[in-house]
């Protein structure tokens, strides 16, 4: 047990979600010591890295290996564009540094390979950011672990983000060029809906698939055997122009006869008054549960309330902190955290199979890497 040890944390790129970093800023046993990135990234990315470094009053170093070495880093938090996740994580792993990475794990086999190799050679502790430490999700896990539902027979997750992604589909005037993915994502940083930032378009299966799959993997250890999926670009011009989905449905067949389903999408801000309908439904041999991810919440309504302001406000949310704490405890106790590297690879395999099923219209039997 290293229960008094303080961990030195480096942020390797923070071009999108800074919430991945904020849990570490709040943890008493973690110290953010440096922000680092490669020198040859675009200037807008340097600016974002610098912003966080300034806020935390720590240096920004344009050189990843140098920062990991000079600042004696224990944990690297990777929050770059999706296509750079694995190469940054792999370099941290090779330096013997534990890794917490934003989602997705990777967007292709080729991207994943260096990290697979690095983890084989130097198995450090790895965790992918997830939403399993939200109060309702933890409550569901406790109920199921207590045996209240008996043997699980089906799990269903609705995961809709009530967010827009630029103009609605069908809004591009005739003769105008397709929307540029990267330019749109960079501009979307202001409201935090830039999860797909990077030069290569990624759809919602890759961008958000980790969350509902994380819920399922948090409730069962059963392996996924078969995946049937369908998807479409139904809402947003930027998705239609770049041929990536904003709405998808998945049926998963797991070992032991467990059947799971997921409906997910970025379905437009008009679709829900408070951020989106995110629900977990589980049926077991002895009972069933229906949980809303956004509970507990409070309702706040007043005159001249801005249209975009959530009417229901989530409360008692400590997901970012609890994830950091969970990782620290895993390091202390030398055990694997939830959504460790093996779990993350399972998610990657599922998403890859779902995308393949969408393309060919058939169920896909899962082939482990």
């Amino acid at each position, binding site marked *: 047990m290293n229960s008094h040890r303080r961990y030195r944390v480096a942020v390797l790129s923070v071009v999108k979600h800074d919430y991945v970093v904020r849990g570490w800023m709040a943890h008493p046993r973690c110290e953010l010591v440096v922000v680092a990135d490669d020198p040859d990234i675009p200037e807008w990315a340097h600016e974002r890295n610098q912003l966080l470094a300034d806020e935390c009053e720590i240096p920004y170093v344009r050189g990843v290996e140098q920062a990991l070495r000079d600042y004696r880093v224990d944990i690297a938090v990777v929050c770059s564009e999706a296509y750079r996740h694995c190469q940054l994580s792999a370099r941290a792993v090779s330096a013997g540094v534990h890794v917490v990475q934003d989602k997705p794990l990777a967007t292709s086999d080729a991207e994943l390979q260096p990290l697979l190799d690095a983890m084989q050679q130097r198995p450090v502790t790895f965790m992918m950011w997830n939403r399993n430490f939200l109060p309702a999700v933890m409550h569901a896990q406790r109920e199921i672990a207590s045996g209240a539902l008996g043997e699980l*027979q*089906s799990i*269903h997750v*609705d995961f*809709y983000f009530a967010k827009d992604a630029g103009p*609605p*589909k069908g809004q591009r005037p005739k003769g105008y060029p397709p929307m540029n993915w990267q330019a749109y994502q960079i501009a979307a940083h202001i409201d935090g809906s830039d999860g797909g930032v990077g030069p290569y378009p990624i759809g919602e299966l890759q961008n958000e698939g980790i969350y509902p799959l994380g819920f399922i993997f948090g409730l069962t250890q059963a392996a996924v055997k078969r995946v*049937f999926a*369908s*998807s*479409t*670009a*139904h*809402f947003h011009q930027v998705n239609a122009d770049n041929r990536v989905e904003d*709405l998808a*449905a998945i*049926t998963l*067949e797991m070992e*032991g*006869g*467990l*059947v799971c*389903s997921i*409906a997910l*999408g970025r*379905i*437009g801000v*008009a*679709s*829900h008054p408070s951020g989106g*309908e995110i*629900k977990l*439904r589980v*049926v077991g*041999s*002895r*009972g*069933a549960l*229906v949980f*809303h991810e956004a509970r507990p919440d409070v309702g706040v309504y007043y005159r001249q309330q801005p249209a975009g302001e959530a009417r229901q406000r989530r409360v008692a949310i400590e997901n970012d902190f609890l994830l950091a704490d969970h990782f620290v405890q895993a390091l202390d106790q030398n055990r694997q955290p939830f959504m460790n590297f093996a779990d993350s690879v399972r998610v990657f395999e599922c998403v890859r199979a779902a995308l393949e099923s969408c393309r060919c*219209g*058939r*169920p896909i039997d899962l082939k482990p890497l």
Partner: protein
Amino acid sequence: MIAAVGFVPTATAPRTTNILRKLVQSRFCALVRGGSRILVDGQICLALVDADALCQREVARRLFGELRILNGAQDRTDSHLRGVDVVAIYGEAVDLSFVEHCLGLGKRVFLSAAALQPKTVEPWLAKRWKTAEYSLTIGNPIASLPSRQCIHQQFVLGKLGDVGLIRIHRWGSDTAIPIEGSFSIPQSLQCELDQVLRYFDRSPQRLYATPYSNDRGFMLHLVWPDGAMAQIDYVGQLPNEQAYTSFSVIGSRGAAYGDDHPNAQLLLGEKFLARVDAEVTSPAAHMLLSYLAERRTPSFASTHSAWQSTAGQPEQRSTLWSWYQSEVLVRKARESIEQHLCVELPCEL
């Protein structure tokens, strides 16, 4: 209150305008949910065939006009049908020759889905759905529930845009899943399929069905050619005869969620219970009354055209079409389960 709803008086409006129809539609659900009497033009004569006592009582309480209760073959004579505008047929197995006889007499026929046994009805439907579209209506008790009607009204009025995904969870609504040597699809699931088809107005391209362990239910995944999709999760039984349903429509302009979860009331006592009350006393009666109210016309003796423009949606497919397609989808779902394959469907089944 009812007067304020503004149903069009017989003498002043022989044909409702589209705007008035929409007004009627949009307020209709509230009217039904409020438990108010459903006003149907006073000239109606309704024959209720083989309906249960609760259904008879509910229809009698709410109907303006003459109600004839017909039970058994001895009541199905021309003399009993004389002057009848609408024949509503319930029971467990419909006598198709009686249906044809009523249609031949020029009657409007309302056929409860529960009376349709797939093996006998499907070949008949295959022939009939193109020719008897608007004189024959299939009553779907689930589609007629106030919550489902409310969501459908929003869709019809264009508030939700094009449907991208319909997701349904139906747990514990049947006492058992009937098994006939191989997988058998319960009728409530077929009712859900029928309702889904009413949103899309065309057949899906692909279907994948997965059974749950211990024959407890199924997961159906349907895909349409333009990428739209539907997922139906069906569980036959829950412990202690509890039940739960959820129905959501995700459209390009908005979404609607009808879910027992936020509609549950808490009962705190020795046991902690969340209870959901049934939306209507008699779904069988409610679907018939809804059908009559939707087709409110100056006179039930009026021409076909008044009926063909039902609910202001002349372009919409008939319930006969959707029920027939749902029969086919049930067969395909069974095929998918038995072969453990995704089934490709022809453009028009």
